[in-house]
């Protein structure tokens, strides 16, 4: 078990574009991390760099402060669970689990004890004598995981989208098994996925990546409430954050003629191309026309489309040429045609050049019509 630190890691395959661009990250000992991003964002490359299967073009990796960049996969003691179960077909489950120990010269009795312990923990004791080949996909994935767990010298376990081939009903129980393992053994776990539900339920901290760069690292709440980048806002949450073009004049951000917030003095007070405000569908509320509430922006808008999701309504509102999605919990007012828009100022963010501007102060609310 160890703290893993990446310092300025960059990688490119041959002469192609950079798959990773100067990544600095620290994974603390015993933490559960998720690496989240769309396909092709560099997540898998990153895992392979950490496990030593790919040599980074630049930068260094440290385990507990020791530079391990030049070490081979075997020497690094980093285990990996792959997208689909990787088993030695001709062996039994127990033999599969013993295999990494046998290769490292662990004596038989110790290995046997360890295998039984881990089988107990993963609840696969009854499968030990079965041939690995005939197991179901989820059991196979557990056995793959167990091969990482039997080793006592493992610094970190990497998961490369391990639930891809698992039936939806089994995913939950596998995730539970992972949680249990993490609580019991306290390994440093890094979990790569493109499924935000998986990432957010599994991890203490989530790293969101796009195009080889880390867009944000933070707790699930932080990613949701204060996305550092429009990409994060869009990628986290379902549906993603709404982005609306806004006005900026004299350091004040406005939306359709309504002042929203004052920019901090450190950045240019005039409008720049690409300036937008973002708001989560979850923080958009509607009220019947004319019944505006105190601390909110009030605007009247047209209702475009309404979808009933059971626990909530997804309502698409139209402001000028732009669409705004609201996620309205069941039981609250669902507008049908026109409505007043209630936006909580604290949950509106200003993005310049894609990045969220920190330190904006909300302007006292004024009622106005956003057109």
């Amino acid at each position, binding site marked *: 078990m160890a703290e893993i630190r990446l310092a300025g890691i960059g990688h490119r395959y041959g002469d192609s574009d950079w798959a990773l661009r100067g990544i600095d990250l620290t994974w603390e000992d015993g933490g559960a991390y998720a690496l989240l991003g769309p396909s092709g964002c560099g997540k898998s490359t990153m895992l392979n760099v950490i496990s030593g299967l790919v040599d980074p073009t630049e930068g260094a990796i440290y385990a507990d402060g020791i530079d391990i960049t030049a070490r081979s*996969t*075997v020497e690094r003691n980093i285990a990996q669970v792959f997208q689909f179960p990787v088993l030695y077909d001709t062996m039994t489950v127990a033999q599969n689990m013993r295999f*990494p120990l046998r*290769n490292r010269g662990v004596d038989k009795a110790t290995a046997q004890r360890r295998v039984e312990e881990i089988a107990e923990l993963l609840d696969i004791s009854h499968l030990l004598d079965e041939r690995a080949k005939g197991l179901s996909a989820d059991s196979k994935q557990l056995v*793959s995981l167990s091969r990482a767990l039997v080793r006592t010298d493992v610094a970190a376990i990497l998961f490369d989208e391990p639930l891809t081939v698992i039936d939806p009903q089994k995913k939950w129980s596998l995730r539970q098994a992972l949680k249990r393992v993490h609580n019991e053994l306290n390994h440093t776990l890094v979990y790569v996925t493109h499924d935000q539900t998986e990432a957010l339920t599994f991890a203490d901290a989530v790293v969101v990546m796009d195009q080889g760069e880390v867009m944000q690292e933070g707790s699930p709440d932080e990613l949701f409430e204060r996305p550092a980048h429009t990409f994060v806002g869009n990628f986290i949450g379902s549906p993603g954050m709404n982005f609306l073009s806004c006005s900026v004049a004299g350091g004040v951000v406005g939306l359709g003629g309504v002042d929203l917030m004052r920019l901090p003095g450190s950045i240019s007070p005039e409008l720049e191309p690409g300036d937008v405000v973002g708001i989560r569908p979850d923080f958009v509320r509607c009220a019947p026309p004319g019944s505006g509430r105190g601390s909110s922006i009030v605007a009247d808008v047209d209702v475009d489309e309404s979808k009933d999701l059971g626990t909530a309504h997804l309502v698409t509102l139209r402001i000028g040429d732009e669409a705004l999605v609201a996620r309205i919990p069941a039981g609250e007012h669902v507008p049908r045609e026109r409505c007043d828009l209630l936006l909580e100022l604290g949950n509106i963010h200003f993005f310049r050049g894609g990045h969220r501007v920190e330190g904006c102060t909300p302007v006292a609310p004024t009622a106005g019509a956003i057109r």
Partner: protein
Amino acid sequence: MSTDRKPADNKAWFFVIPVIISVAFTAIIPLIIVINYSVQDIFGPDDRIFVGSEWFRDVIGDPIIRDSFWRSIRFSVQVLLVQIPLGIVLGLAMPKRGWRASAALVLMALPLLIPFNVVGMIWQIFARADIGLGGYFVNDVLGISYNYTLVPRDAWFTVLLMDTWHWAPLVALLVYAGLRSIPDAYYRAAEIDGAKRFAIFRFIELPKLAGVLTIAVLLRFMDSFMIYTEPFVLTGGGPGNTTNFLSISLTKIAVGQFDLGRAAAYSLIFFLFIQLFCFIFYTAMKRL
């Protein structure tokens, strides 16, 4: 009778007729003719005697045919023992990417494209002690006495070498294709598990190759057991009876002696043996 029976319309059988006709003319009728010959002694169109199982007993009891049978078995076993491991080694050694991979594939495929009797001719000349490059090299450069037209052991060795040159590439290509289909993750997992090269072969590559190796063994067994053209071109089954394999002795009986009844019984036994072997082998491999 229940009323919810599905409507029966036997017109669908008409669709099967073309297949029945083509199979009848290509396989069933010729086979029936062979069976017909095998139970009769035919002297002329109107002059025949039904002899029952006499030809079969005759064939099974014939010492020359028995020798040929064991010779073919011995040859096939040696072919498998040499060509399967060699094919695996070649398949493992072939380059995986780049122009080298393409070059290796083409080179390996070349012997497979050469017609059987051309292979026989190439080796017939190449291995001759007097004018052949190979024969000259072995005799006069290496100083080893070698002459396939005179020495039985040399003739046997030449046929085995020729067959290996011709067909080991097939095994290699099958193995190569099998290896390509193993996902990268298996190698990565093995690396993480600290597996040595041999363990990777034993526990990952070999199990994943089981399917293609079954095909390779079946193909190589059938083809080597039926081998005819190459030894026929090389020495015509000689010297003596050294390379008188089953197909060669069958041809001698059928075409040389025009002993059709005997040849028919021989063919049927030959045919059934190969069927039986393949069935047993395939069933056994499936169970593995």
